């Protein structure tokens, strides 16, 4: 695991800001700590050895107070600034990653844990770990130079021990890498399972199994805890080792100074100053060790996010002319392995094609593939000579209507669901609803994520009505008449006929006879042998 990925800095302005702010405040703070140490050492040694009164030490006392004030302020500013940068970096990165996912065909399951808590974890990395990493380079060099000027003997110890620390850190990073990946996958897994169980809560309640799932949640939680403790043990141990290097170095310095004082090779003021300053040199290095465990999850999330962020969609072909046909050439489709033998077909304008076949043969998967929402395994889907996957995202989807089995209507009013961000008058909305047989639904009715008052059949028809408000060349509908009554079925068939008459390419997955009969062409799928 790399402690700092240049790609992260390149991508995020906020991270650059955090580093710049840390460099500035770090230098101010280091300078102030020199003044502070020198002033305090002067006050103590002069009062002690030369018996100077407070009045004679006013300058040093004021200098100390001023330096302390500057340092406290610089540290506070650094802290707050880094927090702010961390928050901003996380928000920006979350947006980028979500946008990248929004353009991709990637599977959804692992995305929610990554986008939510994974990216959140990066905040600690940016706000706490990264600044300490910067300071760990800056401070030892700056203060080390000062110490070298005043007491070369102590500087020797610094020169010997400081390089040990980055070497050591690299070792730990290397050592924790696989443990961290395991931790992330166990944490991600429990989020996925809890999401799955929550979504299926009604089913669990019907069978009174909700409570017994607590056992599963407990077990996965314990697994995640073990994985996390493994990472923590390694990083706490390494932090212990770093701390030992640091404190033993300081102890050796103190003893060295003490011994040289007894032999008169150094004066008390210098000795005290070095003693006060020495721990400051090691502080950021120790902090790097301390923050390491909190930062690793963020680093892992970054690692997980990177492939998707790096993905570039090159598809940028456009089509201006109206579509003539949708061609399937030797099309193999499925998740991983092909579900049917390669399909070749030409779906023309002004036709209704029904996809039939036994339950589970892959009708819905074919529909998704036609929509360009998943890449075919082999072969291609083309319109006007362009492969659907090579088309610019908007140029393609603006022409497509797609209604899956369980359509999404959003979280808002019925009007919002119908217009989905476009302009449409109330009259148009009502007309579209009437066309699918939904006569007296108020446009202000609330629609919910989960169930929300509308029956499955109604939801499906609302989703259809939505595309009646748009002008689509291609309509891909997954069982539009499932769970609706005869009247609505007739209305839906009428809408399909309307679309066909307007010259659209209509593709329907169908089980019901009525729908199969409405077709001008049937595409029958058989399971691959």
């Amino acid at each position, binding site marked *: 695991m790399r402690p700092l990925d240049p790609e992260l800095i390149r991508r995020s302005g906020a991270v650059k800001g955090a580093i710049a702010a840390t460099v500035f405040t770090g230098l101010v703070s280091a300078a102030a700590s020199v003044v502070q140490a020198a002033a305090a050492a002067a*006050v*103590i040694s002069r*009062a002690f050895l030369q018996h100077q009164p*407070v009045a004679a030490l006013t300058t040093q006392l004021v200098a100390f107070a001023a330096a*302390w004030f500057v340092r406290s302020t610089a540290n*506070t500013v650094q*802290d707050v600034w880094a*927090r702010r940068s961390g*928050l901003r970096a996380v928000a920006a990165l*979350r*947006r980028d990653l979500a946008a990248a996912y*929004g*353009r991709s065909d990637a599977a959804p399951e692992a995305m929610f844990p990554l986008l*939510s*808590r994974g990216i*959140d974890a990066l905040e600690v990395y940016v706000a706490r770990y990264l600044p300490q990493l910067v300071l760990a380079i800056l401070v030892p060099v700056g203060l080390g130079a000062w110490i070298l000027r005043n007491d070369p003997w102590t500087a020797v110890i610094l020169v010997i021990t400081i390089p040990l620390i980055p070497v050591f850190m690299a070792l730990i990073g290397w050592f924790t890498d696989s443990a961290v990946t395991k931790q992330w996958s166990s944490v991600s897994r429990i989020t996925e399972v*809890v*999401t799955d169980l929550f*979504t*299926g*809560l009604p089913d669990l*309640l*019907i069978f009174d199994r*909700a409570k017994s799932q607590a056992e599963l949640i407990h077990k996965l939680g314990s697994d*995640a*805890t073990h994985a*996390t403790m493994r990472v*923590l*043990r390694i990083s*706490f141990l390494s932090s212990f080792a770093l701390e030992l290097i640091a*404190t*033993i170095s*300081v*102890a050796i310095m*103190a003893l060295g*100074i003490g011994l040289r*004082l007894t032999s008169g090779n150094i004066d*008390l003021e210098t*000795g005290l100053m070095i003693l006060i300053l020495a721990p400051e040199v090691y502080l950021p290095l120790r902090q790097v060790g301390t923050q390491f465990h909190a930062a690793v999850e963020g680093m892992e999330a970054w690692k997980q996010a990177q492939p998707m962020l790096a993905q570039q969609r090159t598809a940028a072909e456009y089509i201006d002319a109206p579509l003539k046909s949708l061609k399937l050439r030797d099309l193999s489709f499925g998740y991983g392995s092909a579900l049917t033998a390669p399909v070749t077909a030409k779906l023309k304008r002004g036709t209704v094609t029904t996809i039939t076949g036994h*339950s589970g043969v*892959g*009708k819905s998967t074919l529909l998704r593939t036609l929509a360009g929402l998943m890449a075919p395994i082999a072969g291609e889907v083309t319109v006007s000579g362009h492969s659907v996957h090579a088309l610019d995202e*908007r140029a393609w*989807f*603006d022409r497509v209507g*797609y209604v*899956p089995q369980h359509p999404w209507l*959003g*979280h808002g009013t019925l009007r919002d669901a119908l217009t*989905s961000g476009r302009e449409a008058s109330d009259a148009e909305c009502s007309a579209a609803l009437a066309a699918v*047989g939904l006569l007296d639904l108020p446009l202000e009715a609330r629609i919910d*994520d989960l169930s929300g*008052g509308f029956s*499955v059949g109604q939801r499906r028809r609302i989703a259809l009505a939505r595309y009646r408000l748009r002008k689509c060349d291609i309509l891909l509908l997954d*069982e539009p008449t*499932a769970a609706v*009554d*005869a*009247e609505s079925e*007739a209305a839906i068939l009428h809408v399909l006929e309307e679309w066909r008459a307007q010259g659209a390419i209509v593709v329907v997955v169908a089980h019901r006879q009525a729908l199969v009969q409405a077709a001008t062409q049937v595409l029958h799928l058989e399971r691959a042998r």
Partner: protein
Amino acid sequence: MKRTLLAIAAAAATFASAIGLVTTGGWLISEAALRPPLLTLEVAIVSVRAFGISRGAFRWLERVVSHDSALHATVERRTQLWMALAKAGPRGAWGLRTGDAITRVMQDAELLQDRITRVIVPAAAAIVTASGAVLVQLHLQSLAALCFFAAFLVAGIMVPALAHRIEFTAARRALEERALVNSRLSAFVQHRDEMRVLGVIDANLQQVAVADDRRVAIETRAAVLSGLTQWAALLASGLAIVGGLLVAVPAVLNGSLQGPHLAVVALLPWSASELITALALAASALVRVRSAQARLQGIEQLDAPIPEVERHGSAGLFIRQLRVRWQDSEVVHAIDLDVPRGQRVALVGRSGAGKSSVISAVLGLVEYQGSVIVGGEDDGSARASLITAVPQAPHIFRTTARENLRMAAGPVPDEQLRRALNRVGLAHIDLGRDLGQAPLSGGEAQRLGLARALLLEAPVIVLDEPTEHLDEETAAGIMATIHDEIWGRALLMTTHRLTDLRDFDRIYIIDGGSIMCSGTFVECLMGSEWFRESVEWRLDKARVD
């Protein structure tokens, strides 16, 4: 508790070692400046080394112990939260958006870890160590001790206490915003495909970003506030050091303080400033912990009392005066419905007429008024043991087919599971198949739901459109299976395939939430125009084929 105490002791020892290291070092070199015989420094030399090692060792111990117990406590708490969600039932849970509920169970519950690792342990250790430091200081120079004590009291306790109220409001809002971000993200992740087609990806991302930006703004304000308490802590420590020097320097001059002790008096509050900042940090952490707790209590207090199934009368399912409300209107108006044992009864009507609301009430998934009665001699009173069901879109869990089938009837042997799959035409599905990795089609899911429900030997079976998403041939097979299976049980079914209902004992036609007509298939043909037209439509379509 024991572990927490151990962690506190270790943390206090860590603080004490750090202070000991600096002050002993200061004393050592001050004493050394007087050039005494080396032997007199021996104890100090050994102590400096010992403090150097013990600080790291104690810190290690504290961190391992406190994190271990905090992580385990979170696992327990999360499990309890799930139980609370389960107890609240769907009405309670449905009030929460998925992303929000998951955020509470996962991330908010995790924040509680900080209660031990970042609040209790450091705060208690800081107070213990600070008391010790004050005592040592008191012994050396009482006025200097007073300076430190005042700084500790003001910056370590009073300032954080004052900031607490404002910070709490901010932290609470920040967590709410995070949950909102997550709810929107979870919908975005789940429905990306349709959003892509509709071209609303950017609009939805914008919504996520708006909430996220609000969260950043609130958190930044909270960070400034907690930064200010940190700053106060640092400044107070500085004042304590200067104050200590101002009283200690004259004390050295008049001989009441030994010279080498001057370094100790100056360096003690210096290194003890860590204790004041630790308290200020703990206060900020406490704010977050408390606001997370408030959100978790939100779940734990959810309560949706759903009436129990009543047990009396003759065998079968009987619904009396059932009323169901949705939002502000009543969608089912005081209906009665009888499903005696051994009979097949259908509930039909237009889409949105109230069929699913009746079914949800029977299954105890929504609040209702009136009675759901299951009569007969069967054991038990729990709804789940009396009524088995396939809801409209049965949820297939992201686990093996085997586990999914066992969801209803518990640990049933594989042989029986395979038979159940066979009966619904899913013989090709391997029991070990991971349905998360290799998902079922809509029709397969529907049938797996049926197989799962039929494995449970309950006196009442409720099926909500069991033949949707199936081709005609498969649907006919499924109806045959259903007829075989319900022998001697009571079946309540909804469907739009009205022609399947010819052999049913009774059909109830619901419209606008009221029963309009009931009777046998023929009686309904006579009694309901809607029923007649719908049947004709289906027959008409079937004939042309």
